[in-house]
């Protein structure tokens, strides 16, 4: 089959590799109809994860048709109304791999599953404890072959695979695999109360869903922050007021816009490669390049300083290691709360599908490019550099180029 393989920093290639096989009883094989490139993939593309190996198959936002089931895939689950899976079912695949029976899965904390990372020792050494295994996301989280390919093997299929209603298109349900739940959980983590203003850094795919989710969850105002005009435009179309970091001093502007209070909650939907300015931006770039700091936390700093007293800092943006100069004094003295994590996708599959069915949101608004899999290297480039107004790319791996 064809698969998008990581071959080093800023180098991905479409290669012919063997088809995946069932390896464990609870596995399934899915023939992929649609697969997307995520902002998280850019952190790998840019070489910020030292546990990537050449030849690793990328991709964690994918869906398709079940073509094979392992002997242990039997029972249904609540998300699928108790219906067991069958060959031919059309499904989306959560990017987090979860067993469904550990302490964490039982408590609805799916991205913290204890039993899906065969390289847990690596994560334990780096992070203290291991999060769940993830598709196509480095050896630290299991080294699972990803879904930017024609087929993928899905472990714990009986827990993860979610059957989607036939009346919804791939484009409407594909983002249930990651970014729609991620934006939604980011907004939930803001603990939105009636009358609240939420400030969201980053108008990429995650930010776009966060904006719309914040309104679904009752926010009065959303202020969205970025520097890419077409992304700010899309944020505006989602109902947000917008700030361009190249045009205004963000902290100052947020205070002015909220009667001096600051936003009730703030969200970092940018993560470890935030664009920085001036001396501070230079400091982080140098430290990150020299590997003295793994992540550039400009946005996190700004968000903590901007948040109103007693407010909440929600961090869906990905960090992998260490950051410098977090304003802990502001965080402590203003009595803030921080909530974060890889998204507990399984938790959101049904409720968000219902919102799509009711017409409360149509996730396909986000897609700017649909390309054949052979054009994946080009797709990574335009997504990374925001060329050709690229905001979200969907690849169609089993359609003729």
């Amino acid at each position, binding site marked *: *089959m064809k*698969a998008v*393989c*990581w*071959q080093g920093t800023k180098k991905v*290639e479409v*290669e012919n*590799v*063997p*088809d*995946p*096989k069932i*390896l*464990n*009883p*609870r596995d399934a094989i899915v023939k992929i109809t649609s697969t997307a490139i995520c902002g998280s993939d850019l952190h790998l593309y840019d070489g910020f994860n030292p546990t990537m*190996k*050449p*030849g*690793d*198959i990328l991709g964690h936002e994918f869906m398709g048709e079940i073509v094979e089931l392992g002997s*242990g895939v039997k029972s249904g689950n609540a998300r699928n109304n108790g219906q067991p899976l069958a060959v031919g079912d059309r499904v989306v695949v959560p990017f987090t791999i979860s*067993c*469904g*029976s*550990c*302490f964490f899965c*039982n408590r609805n904390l799916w991205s913290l599953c*204890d*039993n*899906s*990372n*065969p390289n*847990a*020792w690596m994560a334990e050494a780096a992070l203290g404890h291991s999060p769940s*295994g993830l598709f196509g996301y480095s050896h630290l989280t*299991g*080294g*699972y*072959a990803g879904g930017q*390919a024609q087929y993928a*093997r899905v*472990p*714990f299929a009986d827990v993860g695979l979610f059957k989607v209603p036939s009346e919804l298109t791939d484009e409407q349900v594909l983002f249930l695999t990651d970014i729609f739940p991620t934006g939604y959980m980011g907004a939930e983590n803001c603990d939105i109360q009636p009358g609240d203003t939420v400030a969201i850094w980053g108008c990429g795919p995650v930010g776009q869903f966060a904006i719309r989710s914040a309104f679904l969850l009752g926010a009065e105002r959303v202020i969205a922050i970025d520097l890419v005009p077409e992304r700010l435009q899309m944020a505006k179309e989602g109902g947000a007021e917008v700030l361009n970091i190249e045009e205004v001093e963000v902290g100052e502007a947020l205070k002015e816009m909220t009667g001096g209070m600051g936003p009730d909650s703030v969200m970092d939907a940018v993560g470890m490669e935030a664009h920085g300015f001036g001396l501070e931006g230079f400091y982080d770039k140098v430290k990150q390049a020299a590997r003295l700091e793994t992540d550039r936390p400009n946005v996190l700093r700004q968000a903590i300083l901007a948040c109103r007293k007693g407010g909440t800092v929600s961090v869906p943006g990905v960090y992998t290691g260490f950051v410098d100069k977090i304003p802990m004094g502001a965080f402590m003295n203003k009595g803030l709360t921080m909530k974060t994590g890889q998204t507990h996708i399984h938790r959101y599959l049904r409720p968000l599908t219902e919102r799509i069915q009711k017409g409360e949101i149509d996730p396909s608004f986000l897609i700017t490019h649909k390309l054949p899999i052979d054009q994946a290297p080009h797709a990574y480039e335009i997504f990374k550099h925001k060329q050709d107004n690229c905001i979200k790319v969907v690849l169609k791996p089993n359609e003729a180029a």
Partner: protein
Amino acid sequence: MNQPIKVEKTLTINKPAAELYRFWHNFENLPHFMKHLKQVKVYDAKTSHWTTSGPLDGTVEWDAVITDDRENEFIAWKSVENADVDNSGSIQFRPMSHDRGTEVKVVTEYNPPAGAVGDAIAKLLGESPKQQIGDDLSRFKMLMETGEIATTEGQPKGRK
């Protein structure tokens, strides 16, 4: 004489103590999740024969005897006298309150002899015996909680 190696590791498993005890008590199950254990043959209620992989495709073998056994709570075993590798181990199962599963604690101790076999054992245990016992225990947990052990061995990849 090489230094004795003693390792302890604790993990919480989301299953009743009785179920964990029963599975472990049949030592023939251990190779399912212990990476270097090739085979265990149980002779009778007390004695068994253990085979681990050794260097150069060889094996290291010994007879073991159960020295303490409290149903659903504790099992201890040790190699018989004059075994090539003098070793012992125990496992304790402690039920947690509030639906938090069972705390499982494994203790193993090796007294590697000097010379080739001792070196082989040291090699087998690698640089971090604690890590190996920890990994084995994690695989035990996976098997008990999910019925399988997470793996990526045999999956496709691109050129290296």
